[in-house]
């Protein structure tokens, strides 16, 4: 590996701007004469709307426009099911559902206007629990959806009945996960400006500027995607939560109606009660084993909580259902899933896309199995892991894999054997592993232009030797665009300080699907690498002419074109570009590998897959049930590290976010009403909670990745919950946490259960 840039530690390229407070987040965007947009939200989990009277609000001086079902068309939208409306029509379905919106000269006027809107409701029985929602005769969340089932599937693969009939041992468990928010620190917001030619500019902290036009703005507003120019403002964190952003629609609709710019900023409370938090799910597992610890088959039954609308939940449920089967050599499986509507906030995706939940359940189950078979949990995993070259029973093709190395590292570093031999006295260790996609073809079909999961990039060098990268893929704050800059810098021999990667903008940038499914480094990175190679060729051709030396005798280093044989014959890149007319560009596009899954969910959904193993050491106070995470040790296989500092930041951030989810978070709905409404009742990890983390990377050098790299964002969070729960199990001599989060009460109950 002779790269000069790739693999080394670098700051993110916009760090100086960020540490000095100069970054313009959406709420900082100056939009002269912008009106303040605000929504009136349902106070009821379930009610019929008899009448919406906005006349008093409309008469209030300073109010430009009031929107509701009365004056907007019935245009349902939704990524997987078109089950959502801009404004509630016949019913409200969760506390927080948008009933109306106003645009007014300032916030005080907007607030007063909201208070003047009269809505007559007929309160309906709430169905908040998914099992109650499945009962015959349960109230219907959507009158047209019988049984409240939004999606259902049943897949059998391999000789599943024989696997169980002929097993030496079988095990069964049930697990339940909770409703948890992405809890980025920047509340969500968008702004919009209607133009007299009928077009609309939209700005916002969005994960995908291209897709929000096609799945939400254009269909609801009866316009074409091209009528919108959507520009990203740097998100103050997103973690999956800023893909399906209704604030964009609110801002655009209000702006069009008012014919004025509108800013629609959500308060933190609104964000907590009305965005799309991580899906709660109930997972029953049965597994069949050979005496030597070989997995023979598994049965999985899932009931997933959709909440009031579907967003991405059907796809998340599939991911929960199938994902872990591909991490281990699984000869047979039977999987059933049901996604259930309830009168609770619509659930959605958060970092992991269901894999956090799936990994928690399966990896907790595995430690119960190891216990039952009398095997070490690390050995049990090492015996069954998938390997490079494998094709899983669902059709996943494993192009590179270093999960076993990651596990051996954790085992070594944690002094596993010695510590496992101790356990049961309030102190213990546990580990867990995961597999994750790097991009997912399914999204391309549901959300993108076709089945190619494409990305494209433009690299543009100017006469000062400065380089801009235009990519439709977006940075969420994790440093994705810095990865692109480092890749292009490596290819082009131009120092990274000269690179700029502006936020995504549909107005002039090439298409990209956006940041989700850990796709940016692999898919966006490949497109940018090709674009940089193209720009490099074009630079060398232009230099050949200017310097009168054949292109193949030239090279670029430190921002200069040099003759390989005569290094003193050189020309600055900027000068080359100046002589060539002032701009030199390169273009690249990359189409992801893999297939669109068939109806039975068979196929290879991603080009390649990433892996990780997390280990945790905990102390459990056996009297109070309080769990302290003493240390975390983990190994990741991101193919190849592009920016070491950025990669470490992903791991450390993912681990702490995962630990926070496992131990303290929860929107805690009670009959559909959420209790988490601010950061003092929705707790997330603080500096006091952050455990020491030791970790390393195991580079499997993926054959498809740019310089061998694949995704890292999600493998950084998936296994930690199970690792902590397994450590608690070990520390307590058998207290198994079957319901998240790991609160002291649950730990005490589990200790009591284990003692019985």
């Amino acid at each position: 590996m002779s790269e000069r840039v790739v693999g080394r530690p670098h700051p993110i390229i916009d760090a100086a701007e960020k540490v000095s407070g100069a970054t313009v987040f959406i709420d900082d965007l100056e939009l002269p004469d912008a009106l303040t947009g605000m929504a009136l939200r349902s106070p009821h989990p379930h009610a019929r709307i008899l009448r919406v009277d906005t006349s008093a609000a409309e008469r209030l001086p300073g109010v430009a426009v009031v929107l509701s079902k009365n004056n907007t068309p019935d245009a349902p939208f939704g990524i997987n099911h078109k089950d959502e409306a801009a404004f509630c029509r016949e019913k409200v379905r969760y506390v927080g559902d948008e009933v109306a919106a106003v645009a007014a000269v300032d916030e005080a006027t907007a607030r007063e206007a909201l208070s003047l809107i009269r809505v007559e409701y007929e309160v309906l029985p709430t169905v908040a629990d998914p099992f109650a929602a499945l009962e015959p005769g349960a109230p219907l969340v959507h009158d047209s959806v019988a049984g409240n089932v939004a999606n259902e599937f049943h897949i059998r693969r391999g000789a599943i009945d024989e696997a169980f009939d002929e097993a030496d041992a079988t095990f069964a468990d049930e697990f339940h996960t909770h409703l948890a928010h992405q809890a980025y620190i920047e509340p969500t917001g968008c702004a919009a400006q209607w133009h007299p030619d009928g077009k609309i500019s939209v700005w916002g902290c969005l994960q995908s500027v291209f897709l929000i036009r096609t799945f939400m703005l254009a269909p609801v507003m009866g316009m074409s995607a091209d009528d919108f120019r959507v520009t990203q403002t740097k998100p103050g964190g997103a973690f999956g939560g800023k893909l399906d952003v209704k604030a964009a629609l609110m801002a655009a609709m209000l702006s069009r109606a008012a014919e004025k710019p509108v800013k629609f900023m959500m308060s933190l409370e609104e964000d907590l009660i009305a965005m799309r938090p991580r899906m709660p799910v109930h997972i029953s597992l049965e597994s069949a084993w050979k005496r030597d610890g070989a997995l023979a088959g598994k049965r999985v039954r899932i009931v997933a909580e959709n909440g009031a609308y579907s967003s991405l939940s059907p796809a998340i449920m599939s991911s929960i259902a199938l994902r872990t089967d591909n991490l281990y050599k699984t000869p047979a499986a039977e999987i059933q899933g049901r996604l259930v509507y309830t009168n609770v906030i619509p659930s959605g995706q958060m970092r992991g896309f269901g894999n956090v939940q799936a990994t928690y359940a399966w990896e907790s189950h595995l430690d119960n199995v190891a216990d039952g078979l009398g095997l070490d949990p690390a050995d049990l995993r090492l015996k069954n892991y998938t390997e490079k070259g494998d094709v899983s029973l669902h059709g996943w093709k494993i192009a590179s894999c270093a999960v076993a190395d990651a596990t051996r590292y954790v085992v070594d570093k944690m002094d596993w054997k010695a510590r496992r031999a101790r356990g049961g006295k309030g102190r213990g260790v546990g580990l867990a592993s995961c597999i994750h996609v790097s991009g997912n073809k399914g999204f391309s079909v549901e959300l993108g232009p076709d089945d190619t999961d494409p990305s494209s990039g433009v690299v543009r060098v100017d006469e000062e030797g400065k380089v801009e990268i235009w990519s439709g893929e977006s940075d969420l704050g994790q440093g994705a665009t810095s990865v692109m800059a480092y890749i292009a810098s490596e290819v082009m021999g131009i120092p990274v300080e000269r690179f700029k990667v502006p936020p995504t903008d549909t107005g002039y940038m090439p298409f990209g699907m956006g940041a989700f499914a850990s796709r940016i480094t692999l898919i966006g990175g490949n497109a940018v690498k090709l674009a940089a190679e193209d720009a490099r060729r074009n630079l060398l051709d232009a230099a050949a002419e200017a310097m009168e030396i054949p292109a193949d005798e030239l090279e670029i280093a430190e921002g200069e074109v040099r003759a390989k044989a005569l290094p003193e014959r050189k020309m600055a890149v900027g000068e080359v570009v100046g002589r060539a007319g002032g701009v030199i560009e390169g273009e690249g596009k990359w189409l992801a590998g893999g297939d669109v899954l068939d109806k039975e969910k068979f196929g290879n959904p991603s080009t390649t897959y990433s892996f990780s193993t997390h280990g945790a050491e905990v102390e459990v106070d056996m009297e109070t049930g309080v769990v302290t995470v003493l240390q975390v040790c983990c190994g990741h296989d991101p193919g190849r590290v592009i920016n070491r500092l950025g990669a470490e930041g992903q791991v450390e951030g993912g681990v702490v976010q995962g630990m926070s989810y496992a131990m303290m978070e929860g929107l805690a709905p009670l009959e559909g009403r959420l209790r988490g409404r601010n950061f003092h009742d929705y707790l997330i990890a603080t500096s006091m909670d952050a455990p020491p983390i030791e970790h390393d990377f195991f580079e499997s050098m993926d054959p498809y990745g740019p310089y061998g790299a694949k995704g890292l964002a999600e493998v950084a969070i998936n296994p930690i919950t199970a690792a902590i729960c397994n450590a608690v199990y070990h520390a307590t001599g058998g207290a198994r946490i079957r319901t998240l989060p790991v609160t002291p009460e649950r730990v005490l109950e589990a200790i009591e259960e284990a003692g019985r």
Partner: protein
Amino acid sequence: MSTYEIKFSVNGNDESLAVRGDETLLRALRRVGYVEVKLSCEGGDCGACAVLLDGVAVNACLVFAAQADGAEITTVRGIGTEDDLHPVQEQLIEKGGVQCGFCTPGIVVSAKALLDENAAPSREDIQRGLAGNLCRCTGYKKIFEAVSAAARQISEGGGS
């Protein structure tokens, strides 16, 4: 609601403004252009709005603007700008203690206040000093490393 005519200085600039009695310092600062002070929870929980008020770190969302009449206020930009970074900022860059950057203005303010009081903080001191600043991206580790490194840089005379 009555309004008050108040004056304060922000990063050395004198500002006079009329504020309503219920307007927070956070809202007032942002209204007159100091948008580097971030608005998130408005409840004192996240620290994104931290500023120095007469040298003491406070959450600007918990102070009424009228209470800051006559005060000297320092925001992150008063601590350092892109061309003239404070060691805390330099080290946040170097050590990778910044990702999305939304918490960062508040982190810089709290870290500066901590180092003003304690020139050689331990890891626990730093953890405690930043306990009011939520960061969802970094997992805090690199922020701790940055603050320690900044303390060393300052004691070695690398700026204040």
